[in-house]
């Protein structure tokens, strides 16, 4: 479904020095998979995830999404792919503070360019009910707990019915019990909704949820 072909990400530090955040790597993620990206801090996990999520452009190499080369798409087309195809979940939840829970969940649908086959508001209310956030629709993010915020972030990722959810240390800011609940939620989405899930983590306990692991070390995918 998504393939990184000999992808390199490097930063020019100064005239002579180039820093390789990701050395030449080829990675493939298949439909309905649950993948863990594991590695120590600074190893390049987030870099890899941003590339998979089409947030970042590789210095060299090609990213192919459902047979389409990303280098041949313009910025608007890539934005639309992110909008329709991928959902992001972050360690710091990354909700927009001035928007209510419901507005945060609906936000991706405001940027949709294709006609949706469902009413996003109804869908959002359904998700809110299903994942135990009833009564919080009108709350602002700072008025709900971290676990609830992360659930809102997952619902925001779900509103466009994406093929894939990318989660960068989704439990990093949560205690282990709440973190477990979030992981169960992602597992449920993978099993019931057939959504491809890739999570970034450095905790073995969390990585266990994945059916396959991609190990990153010093900017290189090791296996």
């Amino acid at each position, binding site marked *: 479904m998504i393939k990184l072909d000999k992808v390199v990400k490097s930063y020019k530090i100064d005239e002579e020095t180039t820093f390789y955040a990701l050395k030449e790597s080829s990675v493939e993620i298949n439909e309905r998979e649950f993948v863990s990206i594991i590695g120590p801090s600074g190893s390049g996990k987030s870099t890899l995830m941003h590339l998979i999520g089409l947030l970042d452009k590789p210095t060299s190499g090609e990213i192919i999404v459902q047979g389409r080369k990303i280098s041949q798409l313009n910025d608007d087309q890539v934005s639309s792919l992110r909008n329709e195809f991928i959902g992001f979940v972050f360690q710091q939840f990354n909700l*927009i503070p001035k928007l209510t829970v419901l507005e945060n969940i609906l936000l991706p649908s405001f940027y949709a360019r294709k006609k949706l086959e469902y009413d996003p508001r109804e869908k959002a209310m359904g998700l809110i009910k299903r994942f135990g956030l009833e009564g919080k629709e009108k709350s602002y993010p700072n008025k709900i707990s971290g676990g609830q915020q992360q659930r809102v972030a997952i619902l925001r990722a779900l509103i*466009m019915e994406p093929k894939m959810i990318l989660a960068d240390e989704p439990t990093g800011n949560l205690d282990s019990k709440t973190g477990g609940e979030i992981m169960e939620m992602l597992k449920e989405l993978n099993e019931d909704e057939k959504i491809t899930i890739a999570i970034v983590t450095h905790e073995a306990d969390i990585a266990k949820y994945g059916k396959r692991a991609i190990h990153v070390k010093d900017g290189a995918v090791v296996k």
Partner: protein
Amino acid sequence: MSYFLFIVKSAFEDFRRSKMQTFLTSLGILIGVFAVVTLTAMGLGLKKYISDQFDSLGTNTLFVAPGKLLQGGGFGESSLLGNRFDLKDLNRLKRVRSIKSITPLSSKSGTAKGAKDSEFSTIFFSSEAFFDISGFEIDKGRFLDKRDIDKRAKVLVAGPKIAEKLFGTISEAIDKKVTIDNVSFTIIGVIKSKGGGGFGGPDYDSYFFGPYTTGFIFDPDKKFIRFAMKTDENINISSVKEEVKDAMLKRYKDDEFSIVEPTEILSVVNGIFGIMNIVLVAIASISLLVGGIGIMNIMYVTVSDKTKEVGIRRAIGARKNDILFQFIVEAVALSILGGALGLGLAYAGILLVQPFFPAYMDVTSVALALGVSSVIGIIFGVLPARKAANLEPVEAIRYE
């Protein structure tokens, strides 16, 4: 809810969260719009007021006033107040063929006491011809006539406003006595409203009109402040002017009197307001420029404050143009907010001064103020908005 409304709503949510900053930012536009709208309202009001005073006079009317009234495109150092002319001048001008009717004018101000109330007012002393020249229409009773002039009758025709003020109703005023400076007059008629007031300033509706011969009671020298005359409609007004000038030159030097058409006065008024408009536009431009720069500055701050937010929005699928649009809308909202507050303040100010000054706000200035504010928002919002739109998604999302 449409995307646009959603953006506007979130912009105002931002403003609500930082009220003081929002207010201070929009202050530049606020002051600019307030200053321009207030000054325009005063200018417009004054212009309308002056025009109304002369509009009622037909095209074939002339004034003779002492001194140089109009000079070099503006009002000269005339003595509008000096009583310079006398009966001799009146008789001389009456002999000018092409003048159909003529009236001398003098005035007396004082407290007028009626049956119900008293009020400071002014009597215009004229001949019966003044009613024709000024285009007055009678409401109740009658105008002055020639007999009133000949008999030096102590009669007055009242403006509707003053009649109502002193006697309660217009009909009540007829045949009643009014006392001004210990002289008692009988009211013989009330004219129809000439409008032109409504600003609280002096207007015909608040004046009395009496026989000029009766006016000599207050002025033993028997002087007039000016003559007003109506010419034959078929005769070229400039040739009449020449005739009047010749007549006046027999007694006065060229610079001791002026012959003016109302249209000339209007064109001078228009000229003055034209200059005022240029000054206004200059003030407006400077203050709006300053206001706009203030908005641009705060928008740059906002963009760096919201780098993370831009990253989030880009991650979930916002395009560059969505981000551009969002920040421009925010800048425009800020600017319109300032404009609307300025407009509101100006409106309050205008209501406040209206009892003393003929200020007048029109729809054009409202539309212009809001239109200009939006344009300012777009112009000064576009650069910061472009900066936001061009942020690299990955750098924005990593930004702390």
